[in-house]
């Protein structure tokens, strides 16, 4: 019986095992391998052997020799990494705070709850590219944003060679807008699972609204907060579609890379047949994400109540 079940189980699992093998586990190992190959060409599968230069090149330490002149590549270390970190540390905390407030608000009302809940979920079912293009219209030099806030027209936010900090502002507004619904949904389902007794106890102790929020809601919601923090940190590190949706290119002007993110660099590396450098960037991204996730788990050990 045991043995019979054994091969039968593997038969059921065969599609998943084969597909994960080919499209997840092999690529994982292979990408790490490519990151250490010199001048790897994926069309021919040839390379000039083992090297650490790819990492050095991506990080702007090792130069590329061009007609005897050393060229240092700075787009990743000077543009992509700061941009990515800015996105991470602006959008994640802000979107968590806003969505937490909305979820608590939704949880404490009776009328219009369903309809509001539905409205707040709508951005989730929209296309990141499509909505990014809508935000591009809103942040146009003659767009709604300038009009609403009385900013002189035309003030360019994302195109015509606008300042990258301006484009980054528009990008963060869009990313936060787009990331709210998922967080609200998760927080709301967490809130609905909190036992009413805790709130009754807080009421007897005549704890105010804020105190109740800080000492009852947040600790009891901490598993959801941790989950959202980890997933949105990872998501923010991988921002790409939002930039493509909003700008359609990697900078505020054609040929300008001032809105680069790390993932943008990885995809570009395929287009220019420099996948060894893209692979090195992917490995670095992976390490950064692992480190961040590890830190959050470590911190949460003391703070999260299960």
């Amino acid at each position, binding site marked *: 019986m*045991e043995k019979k*079940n054994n091969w039968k*189980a*593997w038969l*059921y699992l065969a*599609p*998943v095992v084969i*597909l*994960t093998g*080919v*499209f997840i586990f*092999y*690529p994982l190992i292979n990408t790490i391998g*490519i990151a250490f190959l010199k001048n790897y060409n*994926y069309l021919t599968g040839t390379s000039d052997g083992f090297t650490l230069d790819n990492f050095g090149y991506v990080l702007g330490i090792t130069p590329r020799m061009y007609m005897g002149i050393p060229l240092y590549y700075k787009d990743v270390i000077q543009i992509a990494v700061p941009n990515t970190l800015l996105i991470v540390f602006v959008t994640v905390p802000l979107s968590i705070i*806003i969505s937490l*407030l*909305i979820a608590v*608000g*939704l949880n404490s*009302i009776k009328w219009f709850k369903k309809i*509001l809940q539905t409205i707040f*979920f*709508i*951005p989730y*079912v*929209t*296309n*990141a*590219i*499509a909505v990014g*293009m*809508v*935000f591009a*219209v809103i942040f*146009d030099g*003659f767009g*709604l944003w300038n*009009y609403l806030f009385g900013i002189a027209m035309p003030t360019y936010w994302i195109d015509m060679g606008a300042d990258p900090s301006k484009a980054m502002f528009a990008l963060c507004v869009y990313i936060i807008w787009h990331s709210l619904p*998922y967080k609200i*949904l*998760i927080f*709301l*389902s*967490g809130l609905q699972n909190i036992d009413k007794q805790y709130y009754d106890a807080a009421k007897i102790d005549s704890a105010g*609204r804020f105190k109740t929020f800080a000492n009852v809601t947040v600790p009891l919601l901490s598993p959801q907060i941790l*989950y*959202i923090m980890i997933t949105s940190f*990872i998501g923010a590190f*991988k921002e790409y579609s939002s930039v493509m949706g909003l700008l*359609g290119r990697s900078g505020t002007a054609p040929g300008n890379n001032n809105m680069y993110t790390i993932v943008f660099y*990885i*995809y570009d590396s*395929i287009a220019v047949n420099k*996948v060894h450098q893209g692979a090195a960037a*992917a490995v670095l*991204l*992976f390490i950064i994400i*692992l480190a961040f996730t590890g830190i959050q788990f470590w911190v949460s050990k003391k703070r999260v109540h*299960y």
Partner: protein
Amino acid sequence: MKFDLRKMLNLKSSSERADARRERPQYKSIDTKSMTLVLKEGGLTAVQMETLQKIMKVISMVLIYAFLAVMAVIILLPFYWMIITSLKTNTEIRASQQTFWPEVVMWSNYVDVFDRFDFATYLVNTLVVGILSTIGTLFTTIFAAFAFARLQFKGKNFLFTLLLATMMIPGEMMVITNYITVANFGWLKDQTGVFAAMIVPFWISVFYIYLLRQNFLQIPNELYLASKVDGKTDWNYLWKVMVPLSMPTLISIFILKLMGAWNSFVWPNLVADKQEYRLITNGLRSSFSTTAGEPEYALQMAATVLVTVPLLLLFIFFRKYIMKGVGRAGIKG
């Protein structure tokens, strides 16, 4: 108002107690109606406190509703702007005086979009890719979830943990090698190949396997034993009992996966290099954007409406399944 504590608590010396007995009728006859016990906290009486609390509750409710209403407007504004921009003329869009309702409603924008934006091709491509990858995913997910939930085999826990661990790995680690792989398979040459490249790698979803396994585990063991007594095979049991019982989850997976195909951008952008192989999102991003500098916002927004509306319709009809499927992730256990 003063209190005599001794009187209140009826503490009396023994000599007084005798008097008290005699005085009882008199004690009873005290007009309690003229006496009031007033407790104060923070300078407010209980009645005042209650009114104050009521007022505070009303105020906080008003504030909460105001906050939620403002946020709802912010959430909905881009959609409204998308729709009205799609109905404006280009000169009105770029006027320094922005209008919240089009001066001339340009339905012709939509006619232009259908002329110049190959909506039909993109739609067919997206539906073919979306439905095929969704059906494939459903099969692999059902099989794997069944094996993990019902069958006993060596290395089960190890394999399951390994699969769950892959969810932590950013997809960007895989994308370079996967691109090389599909290129080596010769999939980037013709339409069938490109479609295969957009479908086959997406036939697995570890998260949905996890979701369905949890669902399968909730089905009582007795049903399985009963089917065994009836001489049913595992295969029969899976399709006759487990799958029908897990329909809500399967519908959630189906819709979410289909939405994923509709929204996928990065991978199709890499592999579908020809116009006629493109999926809807890729077609949208490259449409009406770089014709001699100024983007044609009206047409762009009309195309965006066409891409967004099917999703919203899907959401309206399957709201429950979508929100349940998405929300499942946050519930622990």
